[in-house]
């Protein structure tokens, strides 16, 4: 069986390249690595001349009380996706195996 792993290799190279770029950017100068959402919000404040705090939610909304809780919820979101992904690919793989060897 000939294994062709070209696409896996390309993806690996892209990910490693991405990490190298990150390392070189974070090594030089001070970067906060704040979310671009927040950077965007600051830009709005700059353009309108109003401080960021003056923008109150139009519809009241629940805020995660801390960064830890936010991280937990984000992890939960990703985990949910991961579970579905594993489930479906596992199901397909099992289906293939059982139809090919009756």
């Amino acid at each position, binding site marked *: *069986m*000939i*294994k*062709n*792993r070209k*696409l*896996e290799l*390309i*993806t690996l190279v*892209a*990910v490693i390249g*991405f990490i190298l*770029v*990150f390392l070189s*950017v*974070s090594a030089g*100068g001070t*970067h*906060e*690595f*704040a*979310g*671009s*959402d*927040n*950077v*965007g*919000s600051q*830009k*709005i404040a700059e*353009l*309108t001349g109003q401080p960021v705090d003056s*923008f109150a*939610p*139009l*519809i009241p*909304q*629940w*805020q*995660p009380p801390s960064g830890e809780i*936010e991280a937990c919820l*984000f*992890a939960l*979101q*990703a985990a*949910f*996706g*991961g579970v*579905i*992904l594993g*489930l*479906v*690919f596992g*199901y*397909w793989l099992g289906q*293939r*195996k059982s*139809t*090919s*060897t009756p």
Partner: protein
Amino acid sequence: MHIMEGFLPWQWCIVWWLVALPFLIMGILELRAMMKKDREYLPLLGVCGAFIFILSALKLPSVTGSCSHPTGTGLSTMCFGVFITSIIGAIVLLFQALVLAHGGLSVLGANMVSMAIGGPIAGYAIYRLLKNTSVNIYITVFIVAAVADIVTYIITSLELALAFPAQTGGIIASFTAFFVIFAITQIPLAIVEGCVLALVFKYVIELKPEMIIRLKVFSEEQIAKARMNSDSLPGTEMKS
């Protein structure tokens, strides 16, 4: 790419909600029709949706010294079209608005137009353009995913520029400013996202080529050609 709650004037919130609504309605109708007709596509829908969930939860650092997240909408757009993708995107955005305070209910319309509708439309246009050419299907997937990702951020920049034109230079100056924040940050992420989704697509056509053919995502010859070049797992030979 979220516009934060409260940062968009209410007039614009309404405008973007009105733009988004027809897509959501069409999406629900298409989804219901698909559920009634053929439930065999549900696992594939699950995979596409799962990727939007995973990728939009990953906030990655980028060249500009800020963090942003990929969108993952390209795969679903190719397999199921813009309308169904807009529903999945809307679910993710609703989750993030309600429990993570990323985005919010009033700006949900604007965020849906950028991530769940605008990005997928651009991706779909590219897909239709490349579909019947001799371009390798993995390259097509790569470009579609990357374009859907980047365009999402371009539209966010546009939405903000329209709402907040700069005092000097107007909408264009303001668009450039937001574009630098959002879209430049996004370029490396879009490249990685494109690679990852192309890889996932490879596994899908290894395991379920007939599903991709029946959905008419790509033709049988294109799939056969792509499979010939890749390794085939035992028991995954294509059934005729």
